[in-house]
């Protein structure tokens, strides 16, 4: 029997008992559908993160912090006067960087430039004697591009104080439309080292669209940052003014991942930790991957149940077709071909179920994407459930593999049948 005839016969045989096969296909369908959907979710979210990193475009800057002395495994950690709180879960601390550290980092091979990150805590922002609103300032890394609703990016080299304001501040501050806001002057207030509240003015040069990373606050240019920092440290002890939680280090990203890794290793030796934006997002990606993996695990359990359904269906088919198999063997069909007939029948069930499941998942993904677009309007450009051809092919092939495995037992039984007793089978 030729391969094409085996496949054709297996296809027809699969649908000889329509209801039974349909139910088994349904079980496979559910598994494949779930697996495609959970996979699609992972793909969608991760792709969005990747796109965001790409649009931000700061792959040549890493954040450097000083490594804290390792905590003792048990008991309280010893007090370190240089320890300061940093971003992260409550209790996360890092050792502050001093100007000496900045010089040390600048001297490390591969570091093109180093800029201490000046953390500024503002009190409020206000426009034209209107209401006062709290605002945080994002640290702007050279090369970063903020998604703008209107206006331009801040000019880092400019001597005047510039600011990119998030879109959500327009209405409270009564700035009108995004286009209207550009060019206006707002007042920023903060408390200096002596406890006095001081203000400064800044020009709005752009209005930022909501994004996913660090776009919660306004983006100042260097002139504004410096002004605010000077104000903040006025009256503070000298030591306080030269302590930074972290520093931005620019490096040659074009030299490749290995060079980046080497630089990170050198920083590590010198007692610092350097992490690129990708590293930081990598943590998020890893968490998403882990969640998707668990969800996929459930889908795979459903598929295994469906596989047992296939075993059952095929055992019944073998039982029903005992005499037919006997006849074909009497007519010279080899046991190997009988085996192929039944295992391909199993694969056909897997193929039909998974193809329908994947198609349904893509359809549902479109619908959910449309609905989620309304809920997740804050994250423009996010396709919640995305499908890439490789993972779709992997799901279909994987399900076919499970089906093939499931078909083995019944196919073996059919292949081992003795033609004479099969023909006598009632």
């Amino acid at each position, binding site marked *: *029997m*030729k391969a094409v*005839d085996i496949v054709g*016969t297996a296809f*027809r045989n699969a649908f*000889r008992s329509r209801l039974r096969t349909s139910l088994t296909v349904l079980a496979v369908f559910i598994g494949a559908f779930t697996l495609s959907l959970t996979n699609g979710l992972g793909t969608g979210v991760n792709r969005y993160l990747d796109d965001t990193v790409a649009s931000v475009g700061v792959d040549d800057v890493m954040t450097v912090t000083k490594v804290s002395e390792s905590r003792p495994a048990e008991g309280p950690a010893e007090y370190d006067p240089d320890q300061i709180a940093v971003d992260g879960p409550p209790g996360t601390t890092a050792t502050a960087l001093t100007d000496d550290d900045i010089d040390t980092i600048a001297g490390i091979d591969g570091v093109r430039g180093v800029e201490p990150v000046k953390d500024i805590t503002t009190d409020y922002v206000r426009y034209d004697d209107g209401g006062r609103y709290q605002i945080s300032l994002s640290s702007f890394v050279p090369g970063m591009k903020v998604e703008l609703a209107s206006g331009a990016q801040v000019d880092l080299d400019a001597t005047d104080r510039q600011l990119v304001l998030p879109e959500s501040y327009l209405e409270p501050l009564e700035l009108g439309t995004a286009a209207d806001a550009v060019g206006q002057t707002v007042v920023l207030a903060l408390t200096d080292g002596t406890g006095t509240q001081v203000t400064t003015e800044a020009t709005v040069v752009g209005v930022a669209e909501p994004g996913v990373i660090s776009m919660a606050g306004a983006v100042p240019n260097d002139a504004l940052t410096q002004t605010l920092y000077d104000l903040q440290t006025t009256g503070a002890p000298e030591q306080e003014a030269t302590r930074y939680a972290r520093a931005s280090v620019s490096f040659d990203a074009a030299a490749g991942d290995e060079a980046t890794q080497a630089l990170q290793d050198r920083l590590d030796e010198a007692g610092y930790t350097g992490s690129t934006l990708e590293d930081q997002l990598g943590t998020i990606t890893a968490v998403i991957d882990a969640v998707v993996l668990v969800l996929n695990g459930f889908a795979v359990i459903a598929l295994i149940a469906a596989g047992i359904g296939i075993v059952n269906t095929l055992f019944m088919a073998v039982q029903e077709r005992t*005499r*037919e198999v*006997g*006849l*074909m063997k*009497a*007519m*010279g*069909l*080899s*046991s190997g*071909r009988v085996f192929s007939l039944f295992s391909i029948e199993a694969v056909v069930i897997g193929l039909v179920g998974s193809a329908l499941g994947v198609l349904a998942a893509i359809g549902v993904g479109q619908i959910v994407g449309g609905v989620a677009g309304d809920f997740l309007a804050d994250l423009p450009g996010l396709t919640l459930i995305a499908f890439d051809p490789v993972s779709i092919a992997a799901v279909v092939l994987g399900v076919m593999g499970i089906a093939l495995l499931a078909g083995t037992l019944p196919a073996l039984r059919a292949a081992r049948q003795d*033609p*004479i007793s099969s*023909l006598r089978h009632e």
Partner: protein
Amino acid sequence: MASPLLSVSNLRKTYGSGPSAFEALKGLDLDIAAGESIAIIGKSGSGKSTLMHLLALLDRPTSGTITLDGTDTSRLSAKQLNETRNSTFGFVFQQFFLNARASVLDNVTLPLRIAGVPRRERTARGLAALSQLELDDKFANKANDLSGGQKQRVVIARALINQPRVIFADEPTGNLDTATGAVVEDILFDLNRRRGINLVLVTHDEDLASRCDRSIYIRDGLLAAHAAVAA
């Protein structure tokens, strides 16, 4: 007499082992000449079906040899046995063993599909075989929609399609009424006479057996008597 097409010597077949062993054939010798029609007669349990299965190479003997066309069949590999059954033998059973949902043509061309013949040739040869049995107008029908006699004719067409040298028929008329059975008998003997295809019939039916060139009686696993009938 020319060298026989099928030759059997000291054929034994034992089922099971130890005290429960059952000896179905106890040393049987038989020669079947090319073109001969032969009836194997015996009560149920006499070993006649076992003999037919061994002759048709569906089963291997416990001891003894079966020679087909001068070849000792015990030396053939499983693959060669499959090929031999496919190309040299045709089978007609008491039950039709038709795939009820498949078309008549698909049922008839099953041996060709097993042999790996291309579709175009299968269809041509299937239609030719059906027309020999005056069933060519039914080729597209489902096998289920045919009468008993038509079904048995489809089975004969299927047995013929590979132009076999031997047709093994196990109670070929057992499921048919007398009139239809007679038609099927006529077809089988006509094939034997006109195309020289050997017939090996297993039957209870003495009338059917008497139309064969020769009848052999099996009793308790041994040849009881030869009853030569004038051809």
